[in-house]
């Protein structure tokens, strides 16, 4: 059956749904082609961004398809062993159901110990190896050197869901959008990939007509801030859309929530992320934006952070300060 699955993933142009949008077929090909006696396949359900909940929805509604996608990966990649890597609360809630579905399969249902950063794929490897929860230098990528040094395929569960559909030729070029904030119809919606954010909001009955608002797209802490006029594009990264009613939103409180999230979730390994985020928090606490200092912090965060967490910190603050605060 999954003889030509990698070809199918390629022609479907499936991109990873964990946030990085890396072509799925390339990852699969790399792990398949790297010679090794043992390989791993990990279904990543670490969902750790603020206000993002689409993984939980998929887990609740489509566990059979996820396991099906994982099975296809295990068949495609020789000598492979699987993990379903679950956020703590997801583990508690879905462990039994997933165990039933994976009975007699070489799959471990794994309970994540860490937080947001543990979804980063090298930290996934560190967790499974029971090592310190800090990211590893890339390259080598997990596809070459992952768990215990073996080639490891790590995909978000939504990716596996669509792998199952693609294998059965049922993929309709959709994705899951978690929509929340100051709107009426919060929830997760499976909608076409190419819909603009504006259309998504309108079709779900969430377009605010009478209020001035802004949106945070692609993550509840690291997501970019967009004004209504900027919503004519489709989404990149993780499928999340948070709407803020400008009149109801205390911008400093919002930034404080983000910065506290990053302070809590970062690993403190590298100077810019550890100290830069702290300085940012001190500034936000004092409700005093020093733009020259911020420019310096954005530079070192974006250009010199060890991993994607630090690199992503600047985006929401910079866009909020530029577009909404001033």
């Amino acid at each position: 059956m999954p003889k030509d699955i990698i070809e199918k993933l390629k022609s479907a142009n499936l991109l990873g749904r964990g946030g990085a949008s890396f072509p799925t077929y390339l990852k699969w090909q790399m792990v398949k082609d790297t010679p090794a006696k043992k390989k791993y396949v990990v279904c990543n359900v670490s969902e750790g961004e603020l206000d993002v909940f689409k993984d939980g929805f998929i887990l609740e509604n489509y566990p059979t398809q996820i396991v099906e996608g994982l099975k296809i990966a295990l068949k495609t990649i020789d000598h492979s062993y699987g993990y379903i890597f679950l956020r703590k609360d997801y583990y508690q809630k879905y462990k039994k159901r997933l165990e039933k579905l994976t009975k007699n399969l070489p799959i471990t249902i794994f309970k994540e110990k860490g937080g947001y950063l543990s979804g980063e794929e090298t930290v996934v490897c560190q967790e499974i190896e029971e090592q310190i929860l800090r990211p590893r230098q890339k390259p080598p990528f997990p596809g070459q050197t992952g768990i215990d040094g073996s080639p490891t395929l790590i995909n978000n569960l939504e990716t596996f869901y669509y792998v199952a559909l693609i294998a059965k030729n049922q993929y309709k070029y959709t994705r899951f959008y978690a929509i929340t904030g100051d709107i009426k119809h919060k929830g997760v919606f499976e909608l076409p990939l190419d819909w603009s954010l504006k259309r998504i909001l309108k079709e779900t009955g969430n377009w605010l007509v009478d209020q001035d608002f802004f949106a945070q797209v692609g993550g509840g802490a690291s997501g970019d801030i967009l004004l209504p006029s900027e919503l004519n594009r489709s989404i990149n990264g993780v499928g999340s859309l948070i709407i803020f009613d400008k009149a109801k939103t205390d911008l400093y409180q919002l930034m404080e929530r983000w910065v506290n999230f990053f302070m809590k979730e970062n690993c403190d390994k590298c100077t810019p992320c550890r100290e830069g985020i702290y300085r940012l928090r001190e500034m936000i606490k004092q409700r005093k934006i020093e733009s020259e200092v911020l420019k310096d912090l954005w530079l070192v965060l974006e250009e010199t952070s060890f991993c994607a967490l630090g690199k992503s910190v600047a985006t929401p603050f910079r866009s909020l300060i530029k577009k909404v605060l001033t």
Partner: protein
Amino acid sequence: MIKEKKIKITIDGLAIQVSADQTIGKVARANNIKIPGLCFHPDLAVQASCRLCVVEIKGRKGLYTACSTKIEEGMDIVTDSSKIRRARKVNLELIFTQHCEECGDCIYKRNCTIRELAPKYKVNITKFPDRKKDYPVYKFGPSLIFDSSKCIDCNLCVEACKAQNVCFLETRKKGDFHDVVPSKDKNKDCIYCGQCLTHCPVGAFEGVGEFEEIEAPFQLKDKVVVVQFAPSIRTTIGEEFDMPHGSIVTGQLTAAIRQLGIKHVFDVSVGADFTTIAEADELIERITEKGVLPMMTSCCPGWVKYVEFFQPEFIPNLTTVRSPHIILGGLIKTYWAKKEKIDPKKIVVVSIMPCVAKKYEMTRPELKINGLRPVDYVFTTRELAWLLKKRKIDLSKVQPENIKDPFGVPTGAGVIYGASGGVMESALRTACGKISGQQLCPINFKQARGLDGVKKATLTIKGKKLKIAIANGTANAQKLLDELKEKPKAYDYIEIMACPGGCIGGGGQPVPVNAIIRQKRANSLYSIDTKKKKRLAEDNSIVKKVYQDFFNDHHKFHQVCHTKFRRKNKEVKT
């Protein structure tokens, strides 16, 4: 063998052809291209945490850390640009917010990396308030101080502790931050080796008392203060006075200590000659009388603590012969005191050691002779250098002087104690002679030398095979212990030093240190040995005399030369 693949890269316009599979940082160092950095140490795994060594790669977006980025064919690397300078400046400013400066009392007073970088990158070191000003100071036994308000979270100390297979230092989340802290695990304790200290780039670690306490004994009235210095000091302390690595300064050191007002200066290498004889005797006795084998050296107190805490089943393997400065200190307070007609209670013995674990060893109660400690103070190489500088004594300009009788000068055997393999080599020179009745072994025992973590050899003496092993670094020692658990008879005699390269790489030595520096320090010790007329411990005339006149009383011999060990529970309160 497959021919190594060479690739071409460019750094700052300089075309370089090098073997693949190395980092930009490594190639830059080899080509003398300076890239700043704090968290890289060639002894340890790449940390890539300080983010100062950022460079640009033409045709690629962003900045890359030289310490962790592998070179690729055709890479065109730029190590200086306005963007690079700005990123380094900001990261340095962030590093300074963590580091509460105390420059006057710092082990890097002479050569502080961040202080040198600050003006170069126009850093405002007080741009942000000190985040760690209320951070705690930890004390690890009588040996080490960790002032966490100076820590820049580079993680090298944690890595060094892990590389020693000790894992006492760890990273733990306390409130908002992950901090470096001593482990609360009762199965983990500090062995006082001080490798955290020698690998810390910013002086967050220091010896206990460094540098507040060294003046005290030199101001004592109504006491006879004597100073003895360890074998390795003579090839390391010169670095503190900007002399080249491996400078031999035995005579200058003697003279400089005298200029501090100390009349009686002793060379611990003479004590080492005593240790050698007693240890060779014990080895022969264990072999002939079927005692516990392999016999393991015990003159390294970090290693002894490692055995007593982590591997107590090997306590019976440790030689009970005392370490050189303890023996010499004991002789000073007994043999010498009697000879000089000085009340031993009036004598204050100060040891200058390459080591912070010696500060701990000195306090062991079982070492006391007639209620007195053989050694009253232990100071490090760095502490002595600090005092000399304070008294404006420049070691590089002092006229050398010889050590005087009664203990006089050591043999070459006593000098090489400072390098990994030296104790073994000295003891074997003596033991071979005693077993065979003649000088059989090559006097230069090459298999014992060098910086390899584990060295092994089999000797044949009078038709009998003697299997020996030497390890430096406690993780390497553990490898030998693991092997012994499988094959108890794998070795007859083992030398262990807790620090890389032995005492020349000790926690009390000048910083910074790396394998090249350790090699130079060791080479100089061997060169002293080579030039000595007397290279066998038993040829030392004072050794002969003390054995004839003093150690003929077995009780006295035992009091001065032997000790005991016991299983230890966790000592450091965490």
